[in-house]
């Protein structure tokens, strides 16, 4: 872990998520190649929107806690909401032909594709993910 770790607690507000996303993007761009920075940006965007919209249901009394760190070879981020939690296995496969036009599950699919490791903790309230430099894809 690097000494550049940052912790934020933001309200369930997409504008606050946007500002945090911009901070993370600026930090990541100093250390990662463009396609890796795109991957991290995509995963963080989707996870923050999931936490605010689906986790906290945009409840202004609930917060989202974000801890991220940028190390020499990896970016780690942990996003926790105060919602009821969920089971990621219950989310239908959005790439199945019958689900292709449905709105759910696409963000999670993108997160799993773009990040090197993804873990759900605390009944789905926390997503912990990392991107390794020069990892796949």
């Amino acid at each position, binding site marked *: 872990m690097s000494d550049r770790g940052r912790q934020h607690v933001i309200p369930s507000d997409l504008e606050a998520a946007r500002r945090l996303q911009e901070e993370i993007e600026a930090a990541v761009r100093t250390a990662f190649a463009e*396609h890796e920075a795109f991957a991290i940006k995509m995963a963080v965007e989707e996870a923050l929107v999931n936490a605010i919209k689906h986790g906290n249901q945009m409840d202004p009394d609930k917060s989202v806690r974000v801890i991220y760190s940028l190390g020499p070879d990896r970016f780690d981020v942990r996003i926790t909401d105060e919602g009821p939690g969920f089971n990621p296995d219950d989310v239908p496969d959005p790439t199945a032909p019958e689900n292709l036009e449905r*709105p759910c599950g*696409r963000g999670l699919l993108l997160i799993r594709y773009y990040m090197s490791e993804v873990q759900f903790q605390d009944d789905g309230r926390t997503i912990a993910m990392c991107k390794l430099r020069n990892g796949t894809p």
Partner: protein
Amino acid sequence: MSQQPRRRRLEVEDSGDVAVVHFVDKKILDEQNIQMIGDDLFRLVDELGRRKIVLNFGNVEFLSSAALGKLITMNRKVQAVRGKLVLCNISKEIREVFEITKLDKLFTILPDEQSALQAF
């Protein structure tokens, strides 16, 4: 006293009877922004009666899954009136997003505007 003008998010040009839409924003993000882009796109079909539409992504560097949802709805609307929607000029990174989500199978995606116009 005057109302703040609504920011323009799309530029629409006519090429014959085809409406060619360019996105003004580099990043198609943010619930409210995506909602407004969706409304403007849907208006082309619902109010302006356009049936042949090209979406040119040349200016777009990033879009989220919420934006994909609007594109799916737009595609459905165009199909409902027996029209045609073609996407073009999509960056390598965003093209990959369509491929991961398998939406490249749902949409007609062509490399550039010229080939998109020839698809009608």
